[in-house]
């Protein structure tokens, strides 16, 4: 619903914005040239808020400079009322104006935040692809549990198919984002977070970690490859044929601090590896069954089911 409203508005303003940003152009602003529905809403939201705030900014700039100049001490022609310090009309405007803008933006914030809930699945006829992203020092590992493969620093997926991404970390806190797809989310050890994305366009998209994690942080980037269905199938084939097996102990080898330049492929990924990575922080018997992660709202609790899948997210 918000998408539609903003969209209608967006038609008008995108023209204005192109003019405004002429020179650099939206294409070079990766966060403003989205390839999917999440990014679309976020771009429109950004433009809408920016314009709404210009209604605040411009009067303040004009009033400040205008009044300061008009009532400069050397201009003795201007009215001077040294005792004047209160006016109900002015007070009404200075409180009322911001409140009106607040109400508008609050409605927009409320609707868009619910729209953009990263845990919410993206509506599509296509069957979603499940991907498990694991942050290690300083690499991203993408596990495709249904295909039994994994890749490092290369994240391939088909276009126009919703991506159902689960995230965790092998050590410290990381933050995952592909700018042109939108929405970043933390990846945290011993916990699972979720993110739903979709790309309409094929191509290589920049992705990376946004939360500082030490020495190799700057190199913790990856390429998100949005592919046609056929190319994606070929990619899976390539990973299967080139990849080596990946189990928990090999994962721990891989997870040791290092930076890599070229992607690595794995085939025959042990089923339940993602859960084991989460569970390594809860494996002290009692702890596994009783320790809830008091996350806020999205239940990030550790579930001690025998499969080792530590976290299943309850719907909120």
């Amino acid at each position: 619903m918000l998408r539609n409203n903003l969209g209608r508005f967006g038609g008008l303003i995108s023209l204005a914005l192109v003019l405004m940003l002429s020179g650099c152009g939206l294409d070079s602003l990766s966060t403003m040239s989205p390839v999917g529905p999440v990014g679309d809403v976020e771009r429109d939201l950004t433009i809408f808020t920016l314009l709404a705030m210009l209604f605040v900014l411009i009067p303040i700039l004009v009033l400040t400079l205008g009044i300061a100049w008009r009532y400069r001490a050397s201009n003795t022609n201007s009215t001077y009322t040294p005792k004047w310090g209160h006016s109900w009309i002015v007070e009404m405007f200075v409180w009322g104006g911001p409140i009106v803008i607040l109400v508008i933006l609050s409605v927009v914030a409320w609707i868009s935040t619910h729209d953009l809930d990263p845990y919410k699945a993206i509506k599509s006829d296509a069957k979603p692809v499940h991907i498990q992203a694991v942050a290690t020092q300083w690499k991203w590992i993408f596990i495709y549990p249904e295909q039994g493969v994994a890749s490092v620093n290369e994240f391939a997926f088909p276009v126009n198919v919703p991506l159902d991404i689960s995230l965790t970390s092998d050590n410290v806190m990381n933050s995952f984002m592909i700018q042109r797809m939108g929405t970043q989310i933390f990846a945290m050890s011993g916990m699972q977070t979720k993110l739903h994305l979709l790309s309409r366009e094929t191509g290589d998209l920049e992705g990376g970690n946004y939360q500082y994690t030490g020495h190799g942080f700057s190199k913790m980037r990856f390429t998100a490859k949005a592919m046609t269905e056929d190319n994606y199938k070929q990619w899976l084939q390539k990973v299967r044929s080139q990849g080596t097996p990946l189990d928990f102990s090999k994962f721990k080898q891989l997870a040791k601090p290092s930076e890599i330049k070229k992607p690595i492929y794995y085939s025959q990924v042990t089923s339940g590896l993602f859960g084991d990575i989460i569970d390594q922080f809860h494996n002290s018997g009692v702890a596994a069954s009783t320790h809830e992660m008091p996350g806020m709202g999205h239940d990030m609790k550790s579930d001690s089911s025998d499969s080792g899948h530590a976290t299943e997210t309850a719907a909120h």
Partner: protein
Amino acid sequence: MDILGKLTLQSIPYDNPILMFAGAIMIGTAIAVLAGVTYFGKWKYLYTEWLTTVDHKKIGVMYLIIAFIFLLRGFIDALMMRAQQAFASGGSEGYLPPHHFAELFTGHGTMMIFFMGMPFLIGLMNIAVPTQIGARDVAFPYLNAVSLWLTASAGMLVMASLIIGSFSDAGWTGYAPYSGISANPGVGVDYWIWALQISGIGTTITGINFFVTIMRERAPGMKFMRMPLFTWTTLCTNILMVLAFPALTVVLALLTFDRYLGMHFFTSDGGGNQMMFINMFWVWGHPEVYILILPAFGVFSEVAATFSNKRLFGYVSMVGATMVIALLSFTVWVHHFFTMAQDPLRNSIFAIATMVIGVPTGVKIYDWIFTMYRGRVRFNLPMLWLIGFIITFTIGGMTGVMLAIPGIDFKMHNSEFLVAHFHNVLIPGMLFGLFAGYHYWFPKAFGFRLDEKWGRRSFWGWLIGFYVAFMPLYVLGLMGMPRRMVSYADPAWQPFLIVAAFGALIVLFGVVSMAIQLIVSVRNREQLRDITGDPWNGRTLDWATSSPPAHYNFAVIPTVEDIDAFTDMKERGVAYRRPDKYEDIEMPRSTPAALVIGALSFFLGFALIWHIWWLAAVTGVGIIVTVIVRGCNDNTWYTIPAEEVERTENEWFRQLEKAGVV
């Protein structure tokens, strides 16, 4: 080497020429200062008049000295980061190794907030608040000195980390589990923890002190709704300090338990919860933003009224807005981590709470503008900083509202856009306000004004430099550049970072101009002399004293009958009125106890950082003994006899007569 804990010769970074060079400058400067004091035979003066003083005015000046030292250090860090990012593009790694770069951004944030911003605003409070409310000192002068020396000793720890060991690389927020012992086994995080703990205790004490001072020490007639705005914002700030700093103290203490005792509050394993660290940190951290900004708002309110020669517009609104901001500052902390996967209900609520703060802030901005309306605006330096602030801060507020909306924050969080935003609010909102206060109250503290010409150069350097340095970062954020990158592959980012680096150089011009301004002003102090104590046609009681005020501030405590107490007295012709007879004045005695506690705290912190347990025990006991010994001393006040008061006052009245004021 057990006796020195973890400390060995390898702890000194011989192999890092940059650190060694910086360390040499630091030690060289310290030696030069000590040598100078010795050469001029000023040790006794320094000890009796400054190091042991409990006079709020001198304590304020010492806070300002700390603030300016750390402003320089923090700024040098910023220059180095800008230089690194300007070069480290497309395969080049720049000149800084990643760890050193991380220490720079951690140190920059930590120093600018805890050792520049906080001392600066507490310094201004010390200089202005007691005189604004017509008091002779703060409620607890000795505790005031303790706060100062705790801040100084914490600052010394940060300085020591430059050449002994290293500082934290976990960012100024020190997020666990990265700041935990398994990811970060070095002493860096411990330096960060203990420096913050020690200065945090000092700040909490300051909060209590000024809260009581404002509640109890106001001159007769100064009801709450007659308090100057700076006193109001100070009051709200100090309430925030008292309420918010314990959260920081606790979160740091729990992190300390994790690091020192193997506990699991914030670890990944053992039932720890890293999300709790972030929550608790920002429960302190967001009010802290307003602790930094509210005093500046107070300064701006004083400046707006004084330099418009007009009553402040919307006094009641201003007071209300200040209190609303202070209250709401506790309700928005989640906006620092919308991306931590809370459900949308929670994110929405905190988003709206965040935007609600925009309302009283907007009201304040309009009220300053309407204070100028139908006034007689004088463009002295404080006024320039005010106008620069309103324009720049409104832009920062605009991007703040954008980031307050989770859908926008989702892609802007942890990017250069965020870096641009918080500099865009803190530099005008805090620093410009502190600079305005510095220029405004400098004559009160030192007896002469600051040079206008170099002041203007400095202002333009800061203002233009700010835009050139930070506007490109907004664009970089929109281009998807994460913050805190030591190097990057995307060549499209480089031009913007080069422009930003150039902006930092323009700011450097502002910083250098400010230093020159101080030197020029000291040299020309006779021409710039403030004879009357009221150089700006001030409106509040702080301008009713001589500059600098006598030790006791007011020979006779004034009676307040208006918001603009001093303007009112001048209009009624009762300003500068001699009493029939002077009386003896009781003032607090100087004490070395605060200095001793500060020095011992430094060694206690150092011992805890390096696990030198015997030293920690000795200094810890030493602090307790000092507190007890001082507590048993009943002889803490002395009397200034009426004759001496009369002599001092007569001297000032002679000046006033010469100036033709009376």
